[in-house]
């Protein structure tokens, strides 16, 4: 299932990396940020700590280089990531940065969108409000002469960091 996920995600232009721990992932993120501002969305504490160490730049979210997120789940059939985006500020961060890096626990990968139905239903029922997205590959368009072009309004690069237990 993990292999199927990787195959699907790569087919739509995502970059896949495997990490065994944060000590490995840290330098990779730093290289993606390349000294620019790092924003985050829906991160558990240990990832938030890791990223806060990197958030060197002080530019507004609109000018951030990298946004780091963690996916709730992955879909093997399409290479999609389920990302909770309830906070408007964090949501904006994922949508504005040219590079989006998303941690994914391989244990959360399910075969298809239907197998995520229960999880999606939970998110929809959890509180009064909800906002979450299935993100698949970088932002794309084919609106001019049907030529596939990557990176219109959203991320130009999508990096999926596969790490157990993340």
């Amino acid at each position: 299932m993990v292999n199927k996920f990787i195959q699907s995600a790569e087919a739509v232009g995502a970059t896949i990396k495997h990490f065994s721990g944060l000590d490995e992932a840290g330098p990779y993120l730093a290289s993606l940020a390349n000294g620019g501002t790092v924003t985050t969305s829906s991160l558990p504490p240990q990832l938030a700590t890791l990223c806060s160490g990197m958030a060197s730049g002080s530019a507004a979210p609109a000018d951030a280089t990298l946004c780091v997120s963690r996916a709730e789940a992955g879909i093997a059939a399409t290479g999609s990531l389920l990302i909770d985006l309830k906070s408007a500020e964090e949501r904006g961060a994922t949508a504005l940065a040219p590079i989006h890096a998303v941690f994914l626990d391989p244990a959360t990968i399910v075969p298809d969108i239907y197998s995520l139905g229960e999880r999606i239903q939970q998110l929809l029922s959890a509180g009064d409000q909800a906002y979450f997205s299935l993100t698949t590959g970088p932002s794309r368009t084919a609106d001019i002469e049907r030529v596939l072009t990557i990176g219109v309004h959203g991320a130009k690069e999508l990096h999926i960091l596969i790490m157990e237990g993340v």
Partner: protein
Amino acid sequence: MADATIDKKINDKFLRRALKNFATAYPVARAKAFEGIDFEALRGRIAQNKCAGLKELPELIVRFTASATAAGAKVHLCRTPEDANRTILEIIKGKGADFLVKSKSMTSEETELNHYLEENGIRCLETDLGEWIIQLAGEKPSHMVMPAIHKNKEEVAELFSKATGSDCPPDIPFLVQKARETLRSGFLEGQVGMSGANVAMADSGAMAIVTNEGNGRLVTTLPKTHIALIGVEKIVPTLAEALDVIEVLPKNATGQKITSYVSFIKGPTAGDGRELHIVLLDNGRVKLAADPNFGQALQCVKCGACANVCPIYEIVGGHVFGHIYVGGIGLVLTPFFHGMENAEEILKLCIGCRKCNEVCAAKIDIEGLIVDLRDRIKKPFGQKFLFATMLKNRKLFHTALRTAYLAQKPLQGEGGRIRHLPLMFDSAAAGKSLPPIAEKPYRDLVPAESRRPKGEGKGEKVLFYSGCLADFVYPELCRDTQESLEKLGYAVSFPQKQSCCGIPARYSGEMDIARDMARINIDVLLEEEADYVVTICPTCTMSISHDFPKLLAAEPEYLEKARRLAAKTLNYSELVARKMGSGLRAQGSGGTVTYHDACHMRRGCGVKEEPRKVLAELVGAEIREMADCDKCCGFGGSYSLKYPEISREVLQNKIANIKESGAPTVAVDCPGCRLQIEGGLEASGERINVEHTASLVAKSLK
């Protein structure tokens, strides 16, 4: 539709290339996207759920409104486009704003929102790349999913240069980057954001938005006020039905397994003064949903696949083939959303090939609805009288055609074919030669003994229903049919009182005449006891089996008869295929043939394998499939006279595929396709034969 507009599109080289490339690429991408997925089961579920939902649409609206309100959204149910536009203006003004930043919403195209807001001092910015391009050009979308498919990069570069004040080269990555940079400030400065929605869920009050570019999340996030404009038919009961829509939409629309972003939004998230206004648009939908004949049109999920596969859309594009909603379903929805006055001309543009029905994500009988809607069009003066007089009296019909033909005798060229028609008709012959009307129709040539039913014990009894075209133009094909069936052991009888199946009347919106023809033929074809009624024209078969019961649904006595007749009516190849497997095989080789699937055979009758089986086993032919073997040849009966230029272009595509197959013979199961294709091949100087399967079988059995 003004001929000049059609001509302009036909001669627009870029448009033609863009649409042709798309028509070629789409089926491949679509097939790949649906790999491992049971499309029929999926669309069956969607059709069933949507249909059930539409029956309780008013309740769904109430439930959705309650759930969305509980989630903190303000829901505005608007009866008309004007109501919706005014409501949106008031929301924007209430925020003290004068700048609306939008992601793609076909529904706002339907209400012509931008125009209204601009008139009222609100600046609107479309941020979907395609929508922005057409906004800058001041045009309407020519495709529901790819609104600017008709624009080339040079035109886009010019528009962007003007909009940004900097020189933009016609380089696509550059232009996309330019759009990113230019529109970014719009997202950041827009005071109110607007989106559509692809599906809304009554139980949770949530909506889902399916996008590729990422602008959907930006306009629903950065401005603190989000307005979602949603047609009420987008509401489904629960997430389960919504997931099916999300599953099918990108695959059917663009051949993507899923889009880059599928966002679920419930209520105004985060409490920092954010507002979510949901503007629900009715605009005739609640009434349409309750319409037993046309309600199914609202099952549409707006994927645009009906345009993607349409042979006419491929030639003329969405600015001709549609109004605001384009493609097959656009033709159906226009009278209900934008009035019959905007639909009359476009409803005539459908050639009736039913390709759209095959791919429709919601299993809508798009072609059937288009034809049924023609009933409501104003008819040309005298049309009804003409149909009533000619179709009901086949003898008179033939005489009239024959007279017309004799008057044009000087036009016949070598081999008796007609290559030019007098001035006013000349476009009908454009790109093809026409066969002459036969001196004697088959009805006058039928062997006398077969006019009487053959005796008992002589095998199963077949009534041969030839169809007008074969009777008047191809009597030898009728003879081949009768002789080959007799050789195969059937007792064949040709009922002399058979008349036109009524399709020309039905396609021209003369439903009363079509109903008369149905009754006449039912009586004739049930008068004589027989095991089968066999036709050599799938349009006739489709008409008898499918249309007769539909036309006579309100007449119990005739409905019963129509069903009885439908149950025993078959295409020639279907009947002959039943003899296969009993040791009957061709003696010699039938050579190489390529097979053209007639639209009404493949999609009207659902027949695909039988003619191939007959050709392989009984004719001994090697079948070499051509590309797009089931794509329309452009004939469409009177369509080729009404729109000769379009018909000619569709034919050219078919001819190119036939040539490419390299086969010396094209086999068809429809005399209309034969007429069209052999005319096109002859005119282009190709020495490729076109034969009806019945003639090939007859030859093989000789």
